[in-house]
C-alpha cells in the first residue's frame, strides 16, 4: 500500500501540489484524473521517487523511504514508470527492455528470457531486433510498457498512457493495463485527463484540480455523487443549479431552484444552501401531453437551443430554470425538436444530486 500524507510540492513559489493525502491499495488500478496542469505528472514523479515533496511524506507499506540515494534507488526498483512521451534509448527494442534488468545485474539467458516475456505480454515480440527509434507511436507506447514491467514491479505508474495514440491503439493499451493488473496483480496508478478512460479502467479515482485532490472514490460515486462543484463540472455534469432545501420527508428532499422546484434523494435539512447537479443524459424530453413516467420531477418549458453533436444533441430548455438534456439526434428529428417548441422534461429524484454549499 502506498500512502501519501500531506504532500505538497512547489516550484519557485508556485504550489503545484497542495496538501495531498491519499491511499493507494495493493492490486488496484487507481486513476488520477484532472485537466492538464492539475499536478498529475508531479504526483506520479513523487510516487516514483524522482522528485521529493516540499512538504509531507510518502509511505510504502507503512514505512517512509529514507533520504539516502541508496534507499530511494532500492524503493524505485520496485516501481515501473511509463512517461507521457516515452523516449527510446538509442538501441534495439530488445536493448530497451533489457536496460532495467541490466541495471539490476541480470545477464545471459535469464535476461533474454525476461525480455522475451515482457515483449510477449505487450505483443511486440516480432520487433525485438528493430531500432527502437523507428517504432510508430503505438509500438513505442507498448515498448515503454514492456520496459517498465520487465523487472516485475509491484507498482506500475503510467502518465497519460494513451494521450498521443489513435483510438485503436488506445483501446489496445487499455486492454494491456487491465490484463497486466489482473495477471500479475500489479498495482497500477494512471494519470489521465480522459474521464471515460478513468471510468473504464480504474477501481478508484482521484480528481485533481490545480494541485488539490478534490475527491477520491469509486468511479460511480465520483460520477454520480460529486462532492464539490469543481468535481461535478469536471465529471461532465451540465446542469449545476444553485438552490435551497425547503423540506424533506420519506427520503425525498424538496429543493427550490429559483424558477422551479425539484425532488432529490440526497437527504439534507431544510434551509441548506445547495448546488443541484443533474446530468444531461438523465433528463428525458417529451412532446406529447400525456406523460407516462415514474420520474418524480416533471417540468414544462420552451426549447432555447438545439446543439447537434454527431449521434447526440444537447437540447437546452427554459423551464423557469435553464436545463440541458442529452437526446439522440434521431429523437430530435422524430420529435421535431427545435427552438420555441414547448416540451416536458422528466428526471428521477435519484438523478438530482445535491452538494451543500457554505
Amino acid at each position, binding site marked *: 500500500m502506498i500512502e501519501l500524507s500531506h504532500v505538497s510540492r512547489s516550484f519557485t513559489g508556485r504550489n503545484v501540489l497542495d496538501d495531498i493525502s491519499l491511499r493507494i491499495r495493493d492490486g488496484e488500478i487507481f486513476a488520477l484524473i484532472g485537466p492538464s496542469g492539475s499536478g498529475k505528472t508531479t504526483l506520479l514523479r513523487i510516487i*516514483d521517487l*524522482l522528485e521529493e515533496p516540499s512538504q509531507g511524506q510518502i509511505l510504502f507499506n507503512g514505512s517512509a523511504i529514507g533520504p539516502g*540515494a541508496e534507499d530511494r*534507488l532500492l524503493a*524505485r*526498483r520496485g*516501481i*515501473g*514508470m511509463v*512517461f507521457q*512521451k*516515452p*523516449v527510446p*534509448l*538509442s538501441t534495439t527494442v530488445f536493448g530497451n527492455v533489457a*536496460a*532495467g534488468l541490466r*541495471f*539490476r545485474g541480470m545477464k545471459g539467458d535469464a535476461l533474454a528470457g525476461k525480455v522475451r516475456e515482457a515483449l510477449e505480454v505487450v505483443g511486440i515480440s516480432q520487433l525485438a531486433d528493430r531500432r527502437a*527509434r523507428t517504432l510508430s507511436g503505438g509500438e513505442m507506447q507498448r515498448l515503454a510498457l514492456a*520496459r*517498465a514491467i520487465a*523487472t516485475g514491479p509491484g507498482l506500475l505508474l503510467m502518465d497519460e498512457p494513451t494521450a498521443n495514440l489513435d483510438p485503436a491503439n488506445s483501446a489496445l493499451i487499455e486492454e494491456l493495463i487491465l490484463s497486466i493488473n489482473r495477471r500479475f496483480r500489479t498495482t497500477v496508478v494512471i494519470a489521465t485527463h480522459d474521464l471515460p478512460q478513468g471510468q473504464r479502467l480504474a477501481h478508484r479515482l482521484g480528481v485533481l484540480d490545480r494541485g488539490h485532490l478534490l475527491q477520491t472514490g469509486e468511479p460511480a460515486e465520483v460520477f454520480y455523487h460529486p462532492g464539490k462543484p469543481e468535481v461535478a463540472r469536471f465529471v461532465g455534469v451540465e446542469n449545476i443549479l444553485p438552490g435551497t432545501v425547503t423540506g424533506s420527508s420519506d427520503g425525498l428532499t424538496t429543493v427550490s431552484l429559483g424558477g422551479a422546484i425539484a425532488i432529490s434523494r440526497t437527504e439534507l435539512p431544510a434551509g441548506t444552501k445547495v448546488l443541484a447537479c443533474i446530468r444531461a443524459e438523465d433528463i428525458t424530453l417529451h412532446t406529447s401531453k400525456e406523460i407516462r413516467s415514474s420520474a418524480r420531477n416533471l417540468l414544462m418549458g420552451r426549447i432555447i437551443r438545439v446543439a447537434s453533436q454527431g449521434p447526440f444533441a444537447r437540447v437546452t430548455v427554459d423551464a423557469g430554470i435553464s436545463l440541458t438534456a442529452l437526446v439522440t439526434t434521431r429523437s430530435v428529428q422524430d420529435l421535431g425538436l427545435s427552438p420555441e417548441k414547448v416540451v416536458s422534461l422528466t428526471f428521477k429524484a435519484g438523478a438530482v444530486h445535491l452538494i451543500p454549499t457554505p
Partner: protein
Amino acid sequence: MNEIIDGITQAVQLIVTLDPEVVGITVLTLEISLASTLISAAMAIPLGGFIHFREFPGKRALVNIIQTLYALPTVIAGLLVFLLISRAGPFGFLRLLFTPAGMVIAQVVLVLPIMLGLTISALSGVAKEKKDTILALGATELQTILTLICEARFAILAGVALGFGRAISEVGAAMMIGGNIRDYTRILTTAIALQTSMGDIAFSIALGIILLSIALLVNLAVNLVQGEGPRD
C-alpha cells in the same frame, strides 16, 4: 609560380615514394596526437559525465571556465607545461622536457578543455526525458551517467575528433616542449615551420598535404559514424 608547381610535384613524389623522413615524422605525429587524444578522452568523458550529472555550487562558473579554455593559446599551454617540467620546475626530476611524453602532456592540457566542454554539452543535448527514463528503470548514478554517455556517444565522439584535430595541428606547444629534435620530437607542424624557413618548400608542402589528409580522414570518419547515428 614555378617554384610552387615544382614544390607540389616534388611533394607528391616524396609521399608516393614513402620518403623515410616524411613517413617517420608522420608516424611520430600520429603517435603523439593519438596518445594525447586517448588520454584526454579517458579523463574528459567520465569527468564530463559527473559534472553534468551532479549539482554543486560553482558548476556554472566551472563550465564557463572550461569553455573559455577552448581558446587557450597553444603557446600559453606550452609555457605552462614548460614551467612545470623544466629542470627548475616541480616535475623537473621526471626529465620530460624535449621528449615526446612532454609533448603529449602539453597536448592534453590543450585538448582536455575542449573534450570536457563538448562532453558536457553533448550530455546536455540528451533529452531530459531520457535521464528520467533511465533513472525510472532503476539505474544507479554511475549506470545513469554511463547510459547517458552511451546515448550521447556520437556527439561526444565529435568532440573527441575535434580534440584530435587541435592536438595534431598545433605548433606552439610542440615547439616549446618538444624542441623539434630530428627523429625524436619533430612532428608535422614543427617540421613544416622549420623546413619552410629553411626554404625546403617541397618538403613542407608534402607534410602539409599529409596533415590536411589526416584532418580530412578524421572528419570523414566522424561524419560516417554520425550518419549512422540517431538524429536526436
